[in-house]
């Protein structure tokens, strides 16, 4: 199993009440599969994961990306800084 850290920002963190979780994932798991797993584990995330952005190790990634060991993954809405 791969140890990973998952972070949530902005609306996602606020609405789900979740800032960060540490998980063990099967090797080869994709972002899409992780989203499904997160919604099962934390029902408050239901409806929030569909349109959010994802990053792996500070780079944008998409549903089909596989998650490497020791990854830092983040989920967040489109950015609104400046």
């Amino acid at each position, binding site marked *: 199993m791969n140890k990973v850290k998952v972070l949530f*920002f902005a609306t996602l963190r606020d609405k789900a009440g979740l800032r960060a979780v540490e998980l063990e994932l099967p090797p080869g798991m994709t972002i899409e599969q992780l989203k499904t797993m997160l919604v099962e584990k934390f029902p408050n995330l239901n409806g929030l994961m569909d349109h959010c952005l994802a990053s792996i190790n500070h780079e944008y990634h998409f549903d089909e990306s596989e998650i490497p060991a020791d990854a830092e993954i983040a989920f967040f809405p*489109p*950015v609104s*800084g*400046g």
Partner: protein
Amino acid sequence: MTEYPEIFSITEDEIDLNTLVDFITLPSTGAAAIFTGMVRGSTTRHEPESGSGRTRHETAYLEYEAYTPMAEAKMKQVAAEIRARWPVVQGIAIVQRIGRLYPRTPTVLIACTAAHRDTGVFDAARYGIDRLKEIVPVWKKEVGPQGEVWVEGDYLPRPGE
């Protein structure tokens, strides 16, 4: 090849324009183009359906947060994109202030220096702020008389961005 000065920062401190511009000024620098964005306390919105055609929107403050290590990485990427498009750019400073920020307060700075002003240095700064608002992971929540609301971004990065 000279190493050109660069600064990328997510900070809770005041944005000091004098210090930042000085940091990216070389002995061969003749021009700096600088953009700063501020918290708008009142915004006039054109709403054709309202009687006057305009409504006034009041903001008490904005609450900024960042995914700091990724934000700094994406600022570096913005700087690399600037250098690819305007190779004459010398120094680059990109700073996002976070935390609770009140109207009139500078929240963001992009500054680019070059030997001369006719080198695209204005376009480089403009490009920098546009890209920061697309790919640098920072979010803001607006707090005003109507309550709290997250400001919605609308840019969806593509693979490789």
